[in-house]
């Protein structure tokens, strides 16, 4: 069982006339597998949306939890997706209301490689192939996979970033329009304390035509109506990259000539007395000014101050594939693990 095994969630194409779940008598025992790599083939139907559910019990309709869902797919089409974590049983559920014919099968593996959550204090983990809800090609919500429930969403359809299936290394990303696209969310648990050690990673590709050379990758704040309230990764003036934490600039680390139109890992760590910013794990700048921190309650990708009066501040034109936040300063060895994971996954 240590080798990957074929898993047939449907043994033959299944025809459905609307939304519904796989019958309980047909659910699959996935106890041997940590992860399922599944392919959804759609032979008939439009915007067929399907998700995988998991449970510890196969004799009740209660307590089935969503593992993840496929991007809506139109026939003839196919989508591949990785599903984890898995409890003992798994079953599919069709969410779309119209008729469809599909096949669902793939590989079950016993071992899952390194995950950002393997390192302690992972507080946010947003990856573009996990926990994404797509409506009309745009991302309406992005589920945090850290386990802490720090999800993001965008209620206004015109402000939703586009979903790009093959953006980098065959992996998807969210594409922001440089106008007002962004996702934001309230932290499920406040990042509390007067010392706020943090490490933040953003796997991103910033477009050189981003308006005014201003682009925000990620922001933590306690007040989304004003700026400079929490840690931020952003570009300003088209000439400098900033890692600003808890103040207006005295405590920021920044460097000139940031790269555009290519994929990179932007990351920074912050402690009360020091902070540093890195590009692809190469230190670019540091700052040792003491800054006072405070509780943080919300976070955003693609823009700063999402609740401020228009115009939008620092709207990103570009793509984000992954964002990871740790509530502490990572050791160098841990940072190296994250970078190795990113390189392996995205191939840059």
């Amino acid at each position, binding site marked *: 069982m240590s080798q990957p095994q074929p898993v047939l969630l449907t043994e033959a194409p299944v025809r459905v006339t609307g939304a519904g779940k796989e019958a309980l008598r047909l659910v699959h025992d996935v106890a041997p597998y940590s992860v399922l790599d599944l392919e959804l083939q759609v032979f008939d139907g439009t915007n067929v949306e399907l998700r995988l559910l998991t449970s510890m019990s196969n004799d009740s309709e209660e307590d089935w*939890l969503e593992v993840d869902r496929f991007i809506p797919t139109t026939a003839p089409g196919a989508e591949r997706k990785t599903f984890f974590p898995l409890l003992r049983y798994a079953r599919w559920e069709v969410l779309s209301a119209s008729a469809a014919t599909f096949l669902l099968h793939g590989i079950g593996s016993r071992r899952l490689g390194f995950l950002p959550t393997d390192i302690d204090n992972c507080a946010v983990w947003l990856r573009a192939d996990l926990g994404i809800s797509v409506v009309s090609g745009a991302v309406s919500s992005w589920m945090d996979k850290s386990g*802490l*429930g720090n999800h993001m969403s965008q209620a206004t359809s015109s402000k939703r970033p586009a979903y790009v299936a093959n953006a980098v290394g065959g992996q998807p990303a969210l594409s922001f329009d440089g106008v007002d696209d962004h996702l934001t969310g309230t932290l499920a*648990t406040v990042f509390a304390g007067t010392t706020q050690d943090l490490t933040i990673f953003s796997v991103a590709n910033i477009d050189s035509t981003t308006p005014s050379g201003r682009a925000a990758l990620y922001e933590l704040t306690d007040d989304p109506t004003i700026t400079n309230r929490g840690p931020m990764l952003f570009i300003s003036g088209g000439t400098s990259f900033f890692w600003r934490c808890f103040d207006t600039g005295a405590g920021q680390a920044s460097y000139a000539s940031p790269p555009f139109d290519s994929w990179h890992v932007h990351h920074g760590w912050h402690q009360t007395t020091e902070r540093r910013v890195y590009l692809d794990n190469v230190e670019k700048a540091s700052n040792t000014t003491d800054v006072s921190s405070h509780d943080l309650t919300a976070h955003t990708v693609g823009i700063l101050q999402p609740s401020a009066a228009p115009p939008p501040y620092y709207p990103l034109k570009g793509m984000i594939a992954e964002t990871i936040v740790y509530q502490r300063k990572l050791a160098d060895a841990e940072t190296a693990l994250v970078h190795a994971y990113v390189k392996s996954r995205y191939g840059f």
Partner: protein
Amino acid sequence: MTSMRRLLVFREDALVVPETPGLPDPVVALDPETFEAELLLDRAVQSIEPEGPLDITLPLDPPRPPPPGTGPFRAVVVPQRLHGLEVRPPLNPGARPAGVEGVVPRDDRPELLLTVFPTKVTASGAQALELAQDVLDIDELVLTLRVLSLSGSAVITVALETGMQIESTKGWVSAGAFSAVSSAPTALVRPFRNLLRYVRWSATLSGASPAATFFLSGVGRTWSTEFAPVEMRLT
């Protein structure tokens, strides 16, 4: 299943079949070189033929009374992937089964029970050390937290702690936590990895006169060997 219950088991992932009637054909095709070396370390195994089928000679296990009139006997190891059955896991998954174990079909696999019922807490605290689960053989736990009821304005955060011993609370560290739950019923799922030998739950309660009832169960998986996954209930 009557005949199956006569089988002897010395590891969770393999059957030891005394004598050799009706053995599945694939057994003779097994390559001893690729057979789990760790299996051979069991004290019940005295020798193994380096070539050919996996016939092994078992001495009688000292705690077991020897069958009358028999000495060392022949047996064959059948890995789990061939026999297709699940073996009842030991109550403590870190310990080796001591003797004869029953064999149950996959669909009748028992759950690992330490306490049977959902747990009610009225104050922050952790599971008693004597109820901690031994997860020595487990690389990954995927647990589901079901908060069945919350009183008043209670908010509960359930975390998993892991440690190397169960004699004291010293040295126990967090293995991760579920997100805070402020309404019931709520169900969450998340994986826990990089575990030490034992795990136990820890609950943090806030709010006025808080009380919460929750249930914690899941699947323990092993990557490095062919141990069967086990179901776990931590509450």
